[in-house]
C-alpha cells in the first residue's frame, strides 16, 4: 500500500511496547477507538493510522502517525489505562523516531554530496559547495554563518578549519562542526536548526566510511558491466531487444541501479548493474531528471511500473534485486550509526 512514510512511521508493536500493553490488548483498544462514535476519542484511518498489511481480514497491521500515537496515549491517560512512566516512554519513542528521520535525511545528504571529500594535511576536507548541500542551505546563508563565526571569540582558523585550495574554499570536519553549531543556534526554523544540530552526530562515521572505502577503478567497473551483460545474455532486460543481423542499431548498456557517482562503492557490483537498451537508459535518466540526478533501484522500479506495467517478471526480479542490494548496502554501511529504535 502506498502512503506517506514521512507521516505514518510508528510501528504498532513499538507503540504497544511503549504503552506496556500486550499486542492483542492494544489492538482491541485501537479497534474500539476506531469504532467509537465519540468524536473526541475516535481515531481515523488515513489520519491517525494506515493499514500497511493484513495478516488476515480481521488482523490489520497498522502504522501510526504522530497524531495517532498521541491520541491513543491521551485516551489511555484519561481512562487511567496508562502510567505516567508509559506515557513518558511514548514521548521518548516519538522523539526517537523524529531523530531517526532527521538522521536519515542528514545521511542521505552526506552520501549524495561528499564527492569532494579529500584527505589533506592530516584532515578531511569538503568543498564549500558540498557543505552548502549537506546543510541544505544557500551560499548566502553559509557565507553569513561563516562571517558570524569569524567575528566571534572562537573564529575558524585558516588551514585548520577552512582553506583555499586551487581557488576553491574547503571546510575541514572541525570547520563543519563550527558551522553546525552556528546554524543550529541561529537559523529561524526549528526544523532546520534540529537538522543542522544532527550533522556532527551523523557525519563522522559516514565520512569515515566514504573516505576509507576506495572507489572501484574504471577497469573494475568495465569488467563488472561486461559480466552483467553476459549474465543477461546480451539482451535488454526491459524490452527484450538484442543486437543481431536485423537489429544492428541496438546498443546495450549496463545501467547502475544505484548510480555510480553517489553509490560509487556499488559501481563494480554486478547485482547493481542491469543490461538495457541504450534508448531505454537515456529515456529513464530523462524521466528521472537528467544524468546528473542521483538514482536508486526504487526510481528504476517506479519507472518500469509506470512505463512498462505489463513486465511483471522484470518488476519481480527488480524487487528481488532490491532485497539483495539492500543487504549489500547494509554490509557496506556497517560503520554507520546504528538506528536507535
Amino acid at each position, binding site marked *: 500500500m502506498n502512503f506517506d512514510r514521512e507521516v505514518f512511521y510508528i510501528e504498532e508493536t513499538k507503540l504497544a511496547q511503549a504503552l506496556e500493553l500486550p499486542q492483542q490488548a492494544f489492538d482491541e483498544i485501537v479497534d474500539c477507538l476506531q469504532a467509537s462514535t465519540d468524536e473526541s476519542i475516535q481515531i481515523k484511518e488515513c489520519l491517525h493510522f494506515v493499514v500497511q498489511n493484513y495478516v488476515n481480514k480481521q488482523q490489520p497491521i497498522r502504522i501510526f502517525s504522530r497524531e495517532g500515537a498521541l491520541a491513543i496515549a491521551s485516551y489511555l491517560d484519561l481512562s487511567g489505562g496508562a502510567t505516567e512512566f508509559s506515557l513518558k516512554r511514548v514521548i521518548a519513542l516519538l522523539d526517537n523516531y523524529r531523530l531517526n528521520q532527521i538522521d536519515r535525511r542528514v545521511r542521505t545528504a552526506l552520501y549524495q554530496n561528499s564527492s569532494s571529500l579529500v584527505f589533506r594535511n592530516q584532515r578531511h576536507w569538503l568543498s564549500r559547495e558540498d557543505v552548502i548541500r549537506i546543510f541544505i542551505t544557500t551560499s548566502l546563508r553559509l557565507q553569513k554563518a561563516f562571517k558570524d563565526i569569524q567575528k566571534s571569540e572562537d573564529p575558524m582558523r585558516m588551514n585548520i578549519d577552512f582553506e583555499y585550495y586551487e581557488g576553491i574554499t574547503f571546510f575541514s570536519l572541525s570547520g563543519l*562542526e563550527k558551522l553546525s553549531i552556528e546554524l543550529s543556534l541561529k537559523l529561524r526554523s526549528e526544523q532546520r536548526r534540529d537538522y543542522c544540530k544532527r550533522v556532527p552526530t551523523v557525519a563522522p562515521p559516514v565520512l569515515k566510511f566514504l573516505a576509507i572505502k576506495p572507489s572501484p577503478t574504471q577497469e573494475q567497473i568495465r569488467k563488472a558491466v561486461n559480466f552483467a551483460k553476459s549474465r543477461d545474455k546480451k539482451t535488454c532486460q526491459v524490452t527484450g531487444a538484442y543486437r543481431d543481423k536485423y537489429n544492428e542499431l541496438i546498443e546495450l548498456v549496463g545501467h547502475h541501479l544505484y548510480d555510480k557517482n553517489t553509490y560509487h562503492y556499488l559501481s563494480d557490483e554486478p547485482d547493481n548493474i542491469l543490461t538495457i537498451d541504450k534508448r531505454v537508459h537515456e529515456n529513464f535518466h530523462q524521466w528521472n531528471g537528467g544524468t546528473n540526478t542521483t538514482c536508486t533501484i526504487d526510481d528504476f522500479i517506479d519507472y518500469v511500473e509506470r512505463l512498462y506495467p505489463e513486465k511483471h517478471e522484470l518488476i519481480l526480479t527488480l524487487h528481488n534485486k532490491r532485497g539483495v542490494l539492500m543487504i549489500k548496502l547494509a554490509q557496506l554501511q556497517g560503520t554507520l550509526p546504528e538506528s536507535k529504535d
Partner: protein
Amino acid sequence: MPQVVLAPQVKTEIDRLAQVRQVDSKLLEEFAYFVLEISKEKSSKKAQSLKTNDLKQAIYERFSVKDTSELKKSGAFRMATDGMGKLNFRLKPTWETLYRKFVGILPNEQSQEGYGCINGIDIFKYFKPWQVFGLNPQTATKNDVKTAYYQLSKIYHPDNLVTGDRAIFEEVENMYKSIIAGF
C-alpha cells in the same frame, strides 16, 4: 600612602590631560594609583591551575556528554578533533590542550607574558586573534584589522632585525588571514 610609584611618563600625561581637559590633576593621579593597586593585587594573586577533573567536566559540557567514554564516541568531538592526532586521555596535558582549544583560557594562563605572548595571549597555545589584535570583533572594521596587523607585523616581521621573529610572525599572519576572510 600608595604603595606604588607613578612612572614619569604617566605623570607627564596626567599633567597634559589636566591642562587640556581642565581636570584636577590630583583626581587623575588618584585614579592612576587606583588602577595600579588593582593590577598589583591581581598579579599577586597567583591563579590556581584547574584540576584534571575540572578540565574534564568543562570538555564534557562543551560536547554535551557525561564521561570520557561518551566523549570518545561523540560525533561532534570526533569532528572537532579531526587532525589532532591520537589523544592520550590519561594525561592532564591532553585535557589542558582540549580546554584551550574548545573551552577558553585556563585560569593560570590569563594575561601571560613572555616569549610568544601578545596582549596577554600565548599565541602558540591559543587561537584568539581578536584579543591578540586588541579589537572588539563586533565593532572592528576591516581597516581596523589591517591596521592592527600592520602594527604587529612591523614588530615581528623577520626583516626587523631587532624584534623580528618568524614563528610569531607566521602565527600573527595566520590570525590575520583567518579573520579577514570574514569580511
